[in-house]
């Protein structure tokens, strides 16, 4: 495990580079295939509405996969992630157009722990709403 960011170079409050992740219906079909999660709420509008959703929604695990990229791209080694957890608070609604939705993720160092570990708190927003809660990762820095 070889993170590219040194523990000594970060402070509580250090901001990680924010990133935006576009998601369209095509993204969801591709993610369904790769992950094996074929729940129709992620690709079938009729089904989604029948179960009370406003439209097709993204897989929560897709959003979780995108959010951690802010940490792994910053740390340099995805294998440096020691803990990662989220709460799925609001769905990412993905309309059937060429724009889809945009997941915006920011993060900052919330605590410096022992053993070169830091806790990063992430914020993931879509359409002005927080789509993940309690979104935290612990990563081992160099």
């Amino acid at each position, binding site marked *: 495990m070889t993170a590219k960011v040194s523990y000594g170079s970060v402070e509580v409050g250090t901001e990680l580079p924010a990133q935006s992740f576009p998601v369209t219906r095509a993204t969801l079909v591709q*993610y369904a295939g*790769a992950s094996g999660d074929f729940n129709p709420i992620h690709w079938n509008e009729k089904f989604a509405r029948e179960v009370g959703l406003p439209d097709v929604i993204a897989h929560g695990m897709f959003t979780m*996969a995108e959010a951690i990229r802010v940490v*792994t791209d910053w740390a340099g*080694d995805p294998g440096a992630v020691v803990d990662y957890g989220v709460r799925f608070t609001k769905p990412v609604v993905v309309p059937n157009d060429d724009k889809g939705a945009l997941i915006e993720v920011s993060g900052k160092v919330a605590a410096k722990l022992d053993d070169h570990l830091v806790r990063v708190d992430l914020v993931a927003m879509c359409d002005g709403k927080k789509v993940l809660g309690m979104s935290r990762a612990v990563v081992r820095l160099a």
Partner: protein
Amino acid sequence: MALDQSFVGRTYPPTPAYEVGREKIREFAEAVGDTHPAYVDVDAARALGHADVIAPPTFVFSITYRAAGEVVQDPQLGLDYSRVVHGDQKFSYVRPVRAGDRLTVTSTIESIKSLAGNDVIDIRGDVHDEAGELVVTALTKLVARAAEEA
């Protein structure tokens, strides 16, 4: 209907081994749009100290969720799977999952609660490699929404 509390602490037998393939990792990384070289380039992964290409952090969910599915669909538990949504997800890694791993999942029901008519169940999936070493633990909170009043 409240779920049977006697299921708390129940551990299910380990799943058959899932062999992690390089191309499956590549497919997953492409699906989430992640171009990190450690997922696709063995040399890049080795330069970071890994034995082979590694999987993105959430990759292992595909394996643990399938194992958790067997738990929640246990007919004796009586959970209405059609009403289940994913509440929380957490992973604790001993090391990253990598190509060539043969992983088994042992699922345990950690807790069962009833909150505002919803059944809330916490399932722990301990993922071990072929040598029996723990690789990652997945904690999955599932919420079965209360059925509408008839």
